[in-house]
């Protein structure tokens, strides 16, 4: 049973969402696109900036909560904060909002991610002073996120017999979802396994199509307490937050997590049991998943670490008929890469029943953050606790 404290009226509910059209050059600042995404999400919920009393963001978001509150005209913030660790920060940032709502510290919190990851350049290309853990990585060439993942992916291939075809299956599957999603950057570009195998190497054994896109995008959601949602005239179905969990594991490093004792387990191995405990759910209760997919090997690792299959069986599970439908918008690999926030928005869409790759009768959708950094996961549900 769940060990967390639940007060039904205080269950967090996603009542609004919005995403701007993705682009290679969105032509606005991240401050501007973030504000538009939040305004859109508030409008989706029938709310205005006057209703907002909390804002949470990623640490990597250059616009602070205070700057965003000024831009939006929010009169007072009773709750604010930011979560770190790049693409691990998605569900943890929403969790920061959820915990505040559950405790009654705030009633209406917006969470957003706006990122000009295409037009704004590659963040790895400009950091020429290597401090802290970076001094033992970057001068040697481990500079891009993919470089560290490549080292781990090769270990997983060696340990469990995973192959490039296994990763190609992930890439082509989510591309198929993107082809059905009119908003996806790769809506019009199909990908076959031959296309995947022929794509150029980036960091061996990972090729171009093992990597997520480089996108300008902005997305936001609005959360309120269930007791408030009851009184709202919602034009869309609410998505209830059934629970969430964060995890690091021992001796963790962000992205270059290969110094510890067990290189076959990611921080998600520590998130998973907490999530099942905090939600009272089990893998068989989940109808569809949105898995953080900056890189293809993260997908099979997710399935085995969350107990959908046995350790090492992640790629066999993904290839099997039993595999749950995942990353229905096309994910980071083929819809857009906005630090995983599009996965959170897509989870809400699945619960609402409005995805372009809609799974039938969704009761629970699981969504994760990046599994090679300190991270988190959450479950969004059709019904309240």
């Amino acid at each position: 049973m769940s060990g967390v404290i639940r007060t039904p009226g205080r269950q967090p509910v996603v009542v609004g969402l919005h995403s701007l059209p993705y682009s290679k050059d969105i032509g606005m600042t991240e401050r501007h696109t973030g504000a538009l995404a939040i305004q859109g999400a508030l409008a989706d919920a029938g709310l205005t900036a006057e209703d907002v009393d909390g804002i949470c963001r990623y640490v990597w978001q250059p616009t602070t909560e205070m700057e965003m509150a000024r831009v939006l005209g929010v009169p007072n913030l009773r709750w604010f904060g930011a979560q770190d660790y790049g693409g691990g920060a998605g569900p943890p940032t929403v969790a920061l909002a959820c915990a505040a709502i559950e405790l009654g510290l705030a009633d209406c919190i917006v969470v957003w991610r706006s990122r000009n990851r295409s037009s704004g350049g590659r963040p790895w290309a400009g950091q020429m002073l290597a401090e802290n853990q970076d001094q033992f990585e970057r001068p040697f060439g481990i500079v891009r996120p993919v470089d560290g993942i490549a080292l781990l992916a090769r270990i997983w291939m060696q340990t469990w017999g995973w192959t490039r075809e296994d990763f190609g299956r992930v890439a082509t599957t989510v591309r198929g979802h993107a082809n059905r999603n009119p908003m996806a950057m790769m809506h019009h570009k199909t990908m076959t396994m031959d296309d995947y195998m022929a794509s150029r190497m980036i960091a061996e054994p990972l090729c171009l199509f093992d990597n997520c896109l480089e996108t300008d995008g902005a997305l936001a959601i609005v959360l309120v307490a269930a007791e408030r949602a009851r009184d709202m005239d919602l034009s869309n179905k609410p998505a209830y937050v059934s629970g969430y969990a964060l995890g690091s594991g021992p001796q963790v490093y962000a992205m270059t997590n290969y110094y510890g004792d067990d290189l076959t387990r990611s921080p998600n191995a520590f998130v998973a049991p907490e999530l099942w405990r905090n939600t009272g759910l089990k893998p068989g209760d989940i109808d569809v998943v949105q898995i953080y997919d900056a890189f293809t090997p993260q997908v099979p690792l997710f399935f085995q670490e969350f107990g959908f299959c046995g350790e090492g069986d992640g790629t066999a599970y993904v290839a099997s008929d039993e595999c749950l439908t995942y990353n229905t918008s096309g994910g980071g690999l083929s819809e857009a890469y906005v630090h995983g926030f599009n996965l959170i928005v897509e989870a809400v869409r699945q619960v609402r029943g409005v995805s372009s790759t809609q799974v039938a009768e969704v009761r629970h959708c699981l969504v994760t953050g990046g599994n090679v950094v300190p991270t988190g996961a959450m479950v969004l549900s059709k019904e309240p606790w």
Partner: protein
Amino acid sequence: MSTAPPLPPKPVADRDTQPFWDAVAEHRLVVQRCDSCAAWIWQPRPICPRCHGDALTWTEVSGAGRVASWTALHPPVLAVWADKLPFVILLVELDGAPGVRMIGQLVDDAGELLRTNGDGEGIAMGAPVALRWRVDEAGQTLPAWTL
């Protein structure tokens, strides 16, 4: 207008890591070891994560080790490396220092960066490697490994 040559990222030492870089400048590879529980500790830090003691001694190792993993870099990379691709980066598990894994580039016997994706060198998981010293494009000495 002059164009400065592109440089690699520069390691910025702090009080906890300076002894490592000081030893590197003398072509010695050192790793912290706990005086209390004898654990080998990497990356550098002020306290032993196993027994929580703060008496740690920088201890020289041979640098011999085995390939725990490896990758070969292809474009796009930093400008400084653009004409050196592909080259191999190793994750090396050090002999005699259980659990310590370091990152380094694959070099030839003289310490020069090899332009290779590893195929010609027959690189493999578990392959033994030996320590060499490479001077990078900014004049920084780095530990490196050769097959």
